[in-house]
């Protein structure tokens, strides 16, 4: 059997084989993609991997810009359709409803986003926190359980946040100290959380009532629920933290290329641990929020697992470089919330929402892939 021609790495990644081959040939006198070429030749001359012509670079930049805006445009277009077809969609009360209905999903997705930024988006080798939904359920159960036992708000809230913190610490320890892959470690922790939640609630709803819950469940200025403000405040706070301080850039470096980040002097382990701990804490916050939203701890938190993953990944579409961002996740959350809400207003069956969500993820990821910056 004759040896097959070995395709060359750069040309494959750029997707414009002939053009790029000619450019390489011109610059190096080596014919890439021919029978004698190999990945090694390209890797041995890494400077060649940069796009040679500014025209290509400009074209990439323009399409990238469009696509970054494309996600936003798509969101705005859908919202516009809802606003025209169902005028009540834009009522402050309805917008507030969307915000408060999205709060739990949004806060959990923010946690996962932190893990994805710091751990990298390769699901198997990179960061993932499957325990978030379990943390939500457990901390909600802890809050409501202590509330029923007569403890005050500070104790309940501290215990709920402490639960989240503990889950985050266990995850971080399992991943960093024991070197268990995040997918497996957080999967096991998720099982433990779900079990403990059942132990606490005995599989029944625990009602809860307290000044804190009343305050969180109320409405703030502009008729917008406090939970909505909480979601926005958390997202904006995290976004500011990652944008203004060096933390964000370093976390991104750790996620993008751990070895390079370590070589640059970043304590990668601390960042990874921090992301899981922050994610656990956000899970605890989401637990309190869900108690406030539902006036108690109800089961079924495990149903949140996949929507959280989907929302965090859907957030990529707003980002120009197709990476996880806090603002992207927030927009994706609000978009999904509006989708469900708008469908209800238009009397379209909400059975379609999941399918549209799935198709959107695929469209977004597919579009990113075509541009060569795949997830």
């Amino acid at each position, binding site marked *: 059997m004759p040896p097959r021609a*070995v395709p060359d790495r750069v040309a494959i990644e750029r997707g414009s084989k002939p053009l790029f081959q000619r450019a390489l040939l011109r610059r190096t006198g080596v014919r890439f993609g021919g029978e004698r070429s190999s990945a090694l030749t390209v890797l041995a001359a890494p400077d060649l991997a940069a796009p040679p012509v500014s025209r290509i670079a400009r074209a990439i930049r323009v399409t990238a810009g469009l696509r970054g805006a494309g996600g936003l445009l798509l969101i705005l277009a859908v919202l516009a359709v809802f606003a025209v077809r169902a005028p009540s969609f834009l009522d402050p009360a309805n917008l507030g409803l969307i915000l408060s209905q999205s709060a739990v999903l949004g806060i959990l997705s923010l946690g996962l986003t932190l893990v994805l930024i710091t751990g990298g988006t390769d699901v198997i080798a990179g960061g993932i926190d499957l325990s978030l939904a379990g943390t939500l359920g457990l901390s909600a159960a802890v809050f409501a359980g202590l509330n029923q036992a007569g403890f005050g708000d500070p104790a309940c809230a501290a215990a709920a946040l402490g639960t989240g913190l503990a889950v985050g610490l266990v995850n971080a320890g399992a991943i960093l100290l024991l070197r268990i892959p995040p997918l497996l470690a957080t999967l096991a922790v998720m099982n433990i959380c779900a079990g403990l939640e059942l132990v606490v609630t005995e599989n029944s709803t625990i009602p809860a009532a307290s000044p804190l819950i009343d305050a969180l469940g109320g409405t703030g200025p502009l008729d917008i629920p406090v939970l909505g403000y909480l979601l926005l405040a958390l997202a904006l706070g995290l976004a500011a933290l990652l944008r203004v301080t060096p933390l964000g850039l370093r976390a991104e470096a750790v996620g993008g290329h751990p070895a390079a980040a370590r070589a640059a002097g970043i304590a990668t382990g601390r960042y990874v641990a921090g992301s899981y701990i922050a994610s656990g804490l956000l899970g605890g916050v989401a637990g309190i929020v869900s108690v406030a939203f539902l006036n108690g701890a109800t089961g079924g938190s495990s149903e949140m697992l996949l929507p959280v993953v989907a929302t965090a990944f859907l957030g990529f579409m707003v980002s120009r470089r197709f990476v996880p961002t806090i603002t992207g996740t927030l927009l994706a959350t609000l978009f999904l919330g509006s989708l469900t809400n708008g469908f209800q207003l238009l009397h379209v069956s909400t059975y379609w929402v999941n399918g549209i969500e799935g198709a959107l993820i695929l469209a977004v990821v597919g579009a990113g892939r075509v541009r060569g910056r795949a997830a």
Partner: protein
Amino acid sequence: MSRAQARPSRSISAAELLRFGLPAMLALVLAVFSALAPGFLTVANVTGVLVNSVALNAIVALAMTLAVASGGTDLSVGTAVDLGGLAFIAAVSAGQPVALAVFFGLLAGIGTGLFNALLIARLGVTPFLATLGTLFIGHSLQQLATDGGNPVYVPAGRITPALALIGHGSCLGIPLSLWLVLLLSTGIGLLLTRTRFGREVLAVGIQAPAALYSGLPVRRILALISIASGTIAALAGILLSAHVNAYVPYAGNAYLLDSIGAAFIGTALSRTGRANVPGTLLGVALFGFMTNGLLLIGWNFYWQQVGTGVLILLTLILAFAGRERVG
């Protein structure tokens, strides 16, 4: 691995230990529970666990093993289980012959796999996200087909002997589902370890770019694996719905996390770090016997789940502590 080879004298023993990590863990679980619960290590109980919990989990986990072997994760195995069951039960309820219904069920699994294959091999979407999308779309499809998630029961008149045979049949005293596990695990095990195609799948799984440079048809391999995974999962769906004479929406998702756990634990605890059929089967058995053992020593359902989680975490800790010493 490489460092293990560099220091052969001490590390080989650790590597050998690791190789027996999963069987040892299973043996330990069996020993502890049989000491604590007299009814644990009886023929009736072990058969019960194998038939009721291990068999279907094993089939789905084998589908997952194929996906993991090729370097991916198939989050839509549960969807294929559900759609397979839905197509099968719909055909049976419509009065079609059972053989044709099985064909329709398999077709639904092939369709799910084809959709994934299109996304993964044609559009280059990473398997995790592609199958996540499929999972959500499958959820919608089931909601639309069942008006929001109502189970579909086979009308009493349509429960034929052939249907009962698939759901409850046995051969030589061993239920059909276990025969299928035996058949599939032998087939997939041989495929992965003894055939050229299997080596190619593992090569793609270990390093897809290197496999591509070596001239392997990576896209075709990924597509075939996706289709095979969907088809095998649909088989589990057919067996499940034939067993209960009904299709219950989203029931398949219950298998998703267990199959991921089993396939990845099997992979992590293997000496080579590759997905392998014995590892997956041991993982599934470990989960099944842990749950059953905790039940028999009198833990209630809630604590069982905590216990299972803790035991899985302990297994992982032991496994990766061993790996540290090796690596």
